[in-house]
């Protein structure tokens, strides 16, 4: 679309911007994330000029083994918008991680293709994340609004898209070192803990587990012995006591001292001379036997011995 003056261009820009904005083409929810480390980078820019050269140099400097797919595209003049759209579609159909569309700086007319509605819609429709990088100082272009990310210059876009390999390597090495240190410390800590546990009394002298049990058992053995001995002693003392009492009641002790028991022939104990007549047969019981005797004489005492 070729238009007359700058003023008309500006009006057309404002109108389109408002329209697309209302449609939601600039909304954050549609922004796709730029991959952290793309393997394949697509570039839509002019085949000649510094922009492409600068981008290739920056990409190579930062991360040499990244695949770059350049689609040389007419970016200004008659039909440029359609060419840009075709190139975007072409790269989007390939398995590309991120696409940079851009050019070096120029007049507003030179950059106008990037304000065209069809370019904006192609950027919006693309499934690949797109970085808009048109070298200009002031107002943003429509492509900047609709793209997933914008960079002020093509080299800026290259820097945005690809990290510096050596920095990444350094970061990885640093992380690896930290992980190794942390792991070593962890292992060291556990080892120390294990060693101190292994040095604990129970592991040094496992017999100690049994010591107090042995002691308790021994105490109980001793107690049982003592108690039971006391029982036997008590009971045998009681028995002896009873035996003594019984002994004291027995006539045998009396007889041992010289007393005898006199009985008649029917074994009735005689306790009085009145029970005995001359010629009666009497039995005299001693401790160790019996004497049979005949009564010759019975004499009564004058004094009463018995109560």
């Amino acid at each position: 679309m070729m238009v007359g003056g700058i003023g008309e261009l500006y009006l057309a820009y404002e109108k389109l911007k408002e329209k697309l904005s209302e449609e939601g083409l600039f909304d954050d929810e549609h922004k796709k994330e730029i991959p952290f480390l793309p393997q394949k980078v697509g570039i839509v820019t002019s085949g000649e000029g510094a922009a492409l050269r600068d981008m290739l140099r920056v990409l190579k400097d930062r991360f040499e083994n990244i695949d770059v797919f350049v689609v040389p595209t007419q970016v200004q003049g008659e039909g440029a918008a359609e060419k840009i759209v075709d190139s975007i579609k072409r790269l989007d159909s390939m398995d590309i991680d991120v696409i940079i569309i851009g050019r070096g700086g120029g007049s507003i007319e030179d950059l106008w293709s990037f304000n065209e509605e069809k370019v904006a819609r192609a950027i919006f429709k693309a499934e690949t994340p797109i970085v808009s990088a048109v070298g200009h100082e002031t107002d943003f272009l429509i492509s900047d609004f609709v793209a997933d990310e914008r960079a002020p210059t093509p080299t800026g876009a290259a820097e945005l898209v690809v990290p510096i390999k050596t920095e990444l390597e350094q970061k990885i090495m640093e992380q690896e070192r930290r992980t190794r240190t942390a792991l070593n410390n962890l292992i060291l800590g556990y080892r120390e803990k294990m060693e101190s546990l292994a040095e604990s009394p129970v592991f040094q002298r496992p017999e100690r587990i049994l010591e107090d049990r042995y002691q308790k058992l021994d105490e109980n053995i001793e107690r049982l012995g003592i108690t039971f001995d006391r029982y036997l002693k008590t009971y045998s003392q009681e028995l002896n006591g009873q035996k003594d009492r019984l002994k004291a009641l027995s006539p045998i002790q009396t007889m041992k001292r010289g007393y005898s028991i006199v009985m008649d022939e029917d074994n009735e104990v005689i306790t009085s001379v009145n029970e005995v007549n001359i010629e009666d047969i009497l039995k005299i019981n001693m401790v160790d036997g019996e004497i049979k005797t005949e009564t010759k004489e019975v004499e009564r005492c004058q004094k009463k011995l018995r109560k």
Partner: protein
Amino acid sequence: MSEEIEEVEDIKELEFEEALDRLEKINKKLERNKVPLERAIELYQHGMELIEYCEKKLEEAEGKIKKITEDNEKIDWKR
């Protein structure tokens, strides 16, 4: 009367601590109360069985510990 010492079917069913506990109960019972002779002899006999059992258990434990210790001497803790 203090608590009665219940009969056990098989002394080998007891854990070491249970057996020792029973032995202690027997001692307490005999010490605190005057137990009839027949019962005292029964308790004494049971006590002797418990002692034999406990000693056997301890010896077994000792043997096990010795074995474990010997096996572990092969391990070098400090590498």
